[in-house]
């Protein structure tokens, strides 16, 4: 009996030992110390994209020769015992449950050998990141009038004409407004002053850009008549500036003076054909210091009073305020932050005409007992505004744009490219050939 038990035990042990030795097989030595194929694949893709070549190629049609170059480059940089399959996927969007769709594939083998691994690489190409500006005014305004009057001359805009400045300013500003209307001559200016829309635009709450520097275009006829545009007692067209101020108040306009002393001259090349501005520019009539004052009187609905006492501050180098510099960055406008001002507005106008500084572009400075501001948007407490940039010539219309954008603050909405059109997924599978 014991022998039988012993024999059975021995047989069992032998079977166990043999079975164990039969099944105790180990992975190949290559697997014990295999290379990281996934990392090799990823670094290969990164190498091929070091100069963005891969990103460009995967967006090309499948019959483009760039795919052949990519295959040669792949074959050249991978070791000879490595097989590969590179597949490019289009990223889908919409309601489809499928996220990726293959669009092209290159490979040097049907299979991928004994051991394989895969790396994915997302490439982006032809992506344009842009911004859509919000519109000024919304439903209650948003018209930009650009005074491009062919029958007016400019002053203090040395090196430019009003017409060329108008075009530059339009390029900068038109995208921010609901409607841009170019006022081609003084007749059209007279029409809008008479509440007649030129292109079915909203006249109320508009911005009127006068790009003629210290000159303001004046329509013939009604606006040059006595006690409307002309002050017969003082032989001055300051009365027209007063009327303009009234219109700005009536329509809640923002009147823009891009450089120098606002409303220092009036111009109509036909009406003032034989008059010059005392510096030899014909078609221009000198109003002098009374022009700006009369405008502010009209803006504040004060009675007209011919006043030549208000002046400007002494010449200084002035700097953009920190708020203005912030808006430079936001809107991508980069004028020189230091400017020379020779026509700074006295701060006393704020109290004299019920104004507030709605957006201050340059720091104020003090001279004697008076303070001056070289660039600011002044808003009347009731209605109407004036953007005055009392800088020396030549004008920089980026400052004008900055002044308006800093006041109205239209938002910029980034447009992000859609993933499906600008991104593709590249999958590189690599496998090692050879025995175990």
């Amino acid at each position, binding site marked *: 009996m014991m022998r039988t038990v012993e024999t059975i035990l021995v047989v069992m042990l032998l079977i166990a*030992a043999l079975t164990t030795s039969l099944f105790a097989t180990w992975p190949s030595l290559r697997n014990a*110390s295999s290379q990281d194929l996934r990392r090799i694949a990823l670094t290969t893709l990164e190498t091929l994209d070091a100069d963005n070549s891969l990103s460009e190629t995967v967006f090309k049609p499948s019959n483009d020769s760039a795919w052949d170059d990519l295959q040669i480059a792949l074959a*050249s*940089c991978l*070791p000879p015992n490595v097989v590969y399959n590179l597949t490019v996927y289009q990223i889908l969007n919409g309601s489809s449950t499928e996220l990726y769709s293959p669009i092209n594939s290159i490979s040097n083998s049907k299979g991928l050998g004994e051991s394989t691994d895969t790396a994915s690489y997302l490439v982006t190409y032809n992506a344009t990141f842009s911004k859509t500006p919000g519109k000024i005014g919304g439903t209650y305004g948003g018209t930009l009038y650009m005074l491009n009057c062919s029958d007016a001359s400019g002053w203090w805009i040395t090196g430019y004409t009003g017409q060329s400045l108008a075009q530059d300013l339009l390029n900068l500003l038109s995208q921010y407004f609901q409607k841009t209307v170019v006022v081609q001559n003084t007749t059209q200016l007279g029409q809008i002053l008479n509440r007649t829309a030129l292109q079915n635009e909203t006249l109320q709450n508009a911005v009127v850009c006068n790009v003629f520097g210290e000159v303001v275009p004046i329509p013939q006829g009604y606006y040059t008549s006595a006690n409307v545009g002309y002050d017969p007692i003082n032989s001055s067209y300051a009365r027209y500036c007063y009327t303009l101020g009234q219109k700005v108040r009536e329509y809640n306009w923002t009147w823009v003076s891009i450089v120098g002393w606002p409303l220092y001259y009036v111009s109509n090349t036909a009406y003032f054909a034989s008059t010059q501005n005392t510096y030899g520019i014909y078609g221009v009539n000198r109003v002098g210091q009374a022009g700006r004052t009369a405008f502010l009187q009209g803006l504040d609905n004060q009675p007209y009073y011919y006043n030549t006492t208000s002046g400007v501050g002494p010449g200084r180098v002035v700097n953009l305020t920190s708020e203005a510099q912030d808006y430079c960055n936001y809107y991508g406008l980069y004028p020189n932050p230091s400017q020379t001002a020779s026509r700074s507005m006295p701060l006393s106008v704020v109290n004299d005409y019920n104004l507030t500084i709605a957006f201050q572009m340059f720091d104020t400075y003090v001279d004697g007992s008076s303070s001056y501001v070289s660039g600011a948007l002044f808003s009347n407490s009731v209605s109407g505004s004036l953007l005055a940039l009392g800088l020396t010539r030549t004008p920089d219309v980026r400052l004008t744009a900055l002044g308006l954008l800093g006041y109205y603050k239209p938002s910029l909405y980034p447009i992000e490219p859609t993933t499906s059109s600008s991104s593709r997924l590249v999958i590189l599978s690599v496998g090692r050939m050879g025995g175990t």
Partner: protein
Amino acid sequence: MTIDHLVSTTILVAVILIFVGLANQTLQSAIIYQRHANLATRCSSLLDSILLSSGVPSYWGTNNSAPTVFGLQDPESLKNELSSFSLMRLRSGTEPVYYSKTGSYYSNTTIGSGDSLLEPLAETVNYTAVSELLGTNGTYGFQLTLTPTIAVSILKVQSNPLKFSINVQGTGSPLSNGIVDYCLIIIDVQGSYPAYSLNCGTASLDNLGSALLNFSGIDGSSRSFALLAYAHLPGLVGMGYYKQVTDHENSVIPLVFDVEDGEVILAHSYDIDGRSDATALAYNATFVSVSEDLAFTDNPLQNSIGMVYSGGGSPYGILTISKDTSGILVAAYKKSDGTTGITLMPWGIGPLAFPITFGGSPTGKEWVSTDMRQAVVDNVGYQVVLSMWSLEGYEVTGQ
């Protein structure tokens, strides 16, 4: 009965011993397998650690400070681009060069063609220091090798007019239908100092990765010149060069004097390798940089013209090059008998596609794990291989 018991007991014991032996052998194999797998994992992660970090300070390649954290990634890149200057500071395993005038030894990184990158040993980082920074000192040994992915071989097939054959091979296949941007720097012997001119162009490779470059009107039979060639397909760049000199006795040897300041000494070969001819050499040096689109630009240097004298009584001159821009220092030289030569020194290892071997030797180690990555140095594609082995304990020969 007793005999039966003895026999059966003996068989039982024998079977148990066999079983235990088999089990022991199996367990031993398993332990070794695990060790090897662990070594492979360490090797892979260490390689990533080296290639995906710039080290600290991140610009240690361009200043004289030693890194406190080791890494080779280009600090201005987020991808697999490596710093040409950090690689330049790795101490070469070849015999250092001694220059008596400075009393210093120089690490000698060379491609074996006579052109070297000689850097003061004091400004290089050695294997021991890097091992300590990587935390492998005493436990693992390693060797890091960088080999250009694309091999560009150039042969002169005709002297008059000068004609070259270029063959470009990748690790897996030829660079078929690739493009070659080349620049022939040819030395003119007129005047007291040698002059040089650059003759650059573009050629296309055929299906076998070959091309012929013809320089009609140039007789290269008795002139010194160097031909630099970048072969490329979109995303993959290789570099090779060919050089001919008429002065086989002497040469001007550039030595890096100060990495941080971009200063280079031009030494006489007599003072370095002890050649018998100590004749003074007139030189004219320039710095050729290569843009991202592989265009060659000649950047004239201050004090680019001068004399190099041998012997202790003559001081050495120093050239200053743009330290943050990789490129090739080209020194044309001329002896009084009219023979000339040209020496090339890469500033950074990429511009001349120098290979790098850094670290210990894996020879004789019982088990060496290797891993590989692709990388880019100065536009040139490299394959980076890390070989790693255990220095401690079990199944390691020679321990």
